[in-house]
């Protein structure tokens, strides 16, 4: 049409639906980041209001298990990133391998978290025992829920990957779930550092 001059055009790249999905996911993760930020804020306020931290009468927090879990999630992110690269190159077997690795690592994380909680409970920290218990169980529990959701996501992706339907849309779903997992890993890193280390 002749009405081309003076009209502000759409950028051609912007017309791909994938970028819209990416933006949606980024905003979603921003939203979830605010949620976790509030939880960290809550932790900060509770900790600063206590005369001493950990509060008197509470057992010491384990150090090894959370460190192992941090490593697990780091490896998980690595495996998923490699799976994403392989997907872009069309190497189906490597994608499957990456997804399986990630599922195992993620699953192991959840199992070890449960071990962490039971050992804490046995060492005398019940859920009702003041702010330390609330923070440790509450924050790590909520995070673990997110890991479970991530595992479900990987499970949903696996059939499509196995069937070999690796087209642009499927790549995109993989990319979105990988973004999610990176987010989960970063949140855990923050939790590990702020709750168990500092």
């Amino acid at each position: 049409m002749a009405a081309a001059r003076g009209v502000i055009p759409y950028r051609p790249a912007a017309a791909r639906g994938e970028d819209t999905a990416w933006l949606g996911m980024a905003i979603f993760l921003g939203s979830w980041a605010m949620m976790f930020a509030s939880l960290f804020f809550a932790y900060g306020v509770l900790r600063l209001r206590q005369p001493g931290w950990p509060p008197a009468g509470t057992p010491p927090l384990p150090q090894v298990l959370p460190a192992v879990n941090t490593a697990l999630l780091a490896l998980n992110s690595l495996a998923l990133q490699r799976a994403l690269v392989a997907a872009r190159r069309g190497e189906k077997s490597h994608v499957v391998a990456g997804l399986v690795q990630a599922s195992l690592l993620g699953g192991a994380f959840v199992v070890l978290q449960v071990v962490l909680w039971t050992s804490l409970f046995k060492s005398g920290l019940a859920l009702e025992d003041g702010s330390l218990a609330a923070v440790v169980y509450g924050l790590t529990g909520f995070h673990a829920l997110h890991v479970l959701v991530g595992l479900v996501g990987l499970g949903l992706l696996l059939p499509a990957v196995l069937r070999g339907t690796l087209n642009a849309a499927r790549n995109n779903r993989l990319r979105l779930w990988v973004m999610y997992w990176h987010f989960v890993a970063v949140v855990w890193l923050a939790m590990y550092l702020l709750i168990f280390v500092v």
Partner: protein
Amino acid sequence: MTAQEATFNRQTIEALQPIHSPPTTFWSKYMWSLDHKVIAKQYLWAGLLFLLVGGTLAMMIRWQWAFPGKPVPILGPTFLRSSGGVIGPALYMQLFTMHGLIMIFFAITPILIGAFGNFCIPLLIGARDMAFPWLNALSFWVFAFSQLLVIGSFFGDLGAAGAGWTTYPPLSTNIGTPGNGQTLMVAAVFFTGIASIMGGINYVTTVIRLRAPGMTYMRMPLMVWGQFLTAILNVLFVPVLGSAALLLLMDRVFGTQFFIAGAAAVKGGGDPILFQHLFWIFGHPEVYILILPAWGIVADLLAFFSRKPANWYKGTVHAMSAVTILSAVVYGHHMFQTGMNPLLGEGFTTLTLIISVPAEVLFLNWLRTIYKGSIRLTVPMLFALSMTFVFGLGGLTGLYLGANAPDIYLHDTMFVVGHFHFTMAAASFLASLAGIYFWYPKMFGRNMNQTLGKIHFWFSSIGITLVFGGQLLVGYAGQNRRLWNPFAYEVFKPLQPLNRWTSYCAFVLFAGQLLFVWNFIYSMSRGKKAEANPWAVGTLEWSIPSPPPVHNFDAIPVVVRGPHELSNPELERKLGRDWVGQAEVVASEEPGAVRTAARGAT
């Protein structure tokens, strides 16, 4: 740009928004619809229903103050048989709690944001639907689920939620309000928050990605700006409410101690003030969430019905954006009485007073828009004008409360209640009504009865001013809020007549709304069939039939001008009318010249 590029762009946009065949089954048409216009109507019905419930609760509160201890007519024999129709203190606190929660989360939010956001955003930016239609449908059903939880909470084993809409712990924990009524309500708030976040993601992505070619940010109707900024606030701050609700739920269900202190605390306990921080970091942006779409609607309507462009469009956009950005850092003024560090209090006072500046700018822009216009007092315009009136008053009363010192006297008085009712209930409510009267023809393809609309306008405007004005007055005289019987205090006894008068006005205000209900429902099937552009304005939704087809636009429009190009003398001569469509290319008009034709046009 070449003609080839233009065609390529048009093609890619069309490819991005393909026209699907319309749904055929009852399920896909009305229950799980992916059409933003249907989802909008779902939100509208759900919101209006709960608006009625919330309003009824308000009438009961006003009854208690007009006639303390007397049995409530009609509702008493039905719902309050065990107490002989009388509202007791425990029930009273449930009334004001549920009134607040329902009105904010389950009435105004679904109407102003769920319904209008969903209906208007794609149409006004020239898109065929939202960016994520599936997510859109899901968000409505999550919201509907949360409404079910609200209904369930009324039947809690130990009564309904009763800790005030602010839900401060420890009163809102098992210590203060045991029972599953309160728990269900906190869960309901959590789930409606999820629905809001989903909606927010959709709105933000849609505005960023799906604007029609030529629809720059500075050509969007201000209604879209209002929804866009609200959605950004929703996405960022509803999660904070989510975390507060989550931690409170954990305290109630799992026995944790995030917010428990005092005698019940164990091993250090938690901090009740922490909840207030989390709640108000959400809570203050929330009030802007509820007013930004209203500002957008009114800014557009004032321009449309003054038949001239909105004054200093850019200034309004910048002002609304400034308010959005500042909204998060003023929240402490809700907590002035909690024993705050003086420097913190000073900081919040200063920032709160600063946020009045952009609000003044956009208000002045409204005033300058109608000045020297050609004002048509249509029903939407009447409501837009009354919204301007009430928001002016409500906003000014905020000054008293934003500074630390005067707030010492006014905190927890009816003055606060009057202030937020003027700004939230009155302004957002009147803007919602303006929007309903304005977009009803487009939504339902029929016209509402305009005479009934005008009568409804008078009832609402006068009623609102008197009722909430009455609250401001008794609050200034020191009357505290949330009191089952304020007249148990010597100093408030003289205020009983004024309270009773205010209640009478409230009853009349409520009665007037029934006119609207009748008009709304009756016109849906018996109203005069609406034309495509009954208001003679140029935004994109009026260039398609009323109601629009499922796919909205046969061809995605190419926008060449701003949303309020009204009374342009040159175009009036050429077209013989004072309005021109946003995508309307005027014959023999140089497209490039469009941008410079009107003084200062974007």
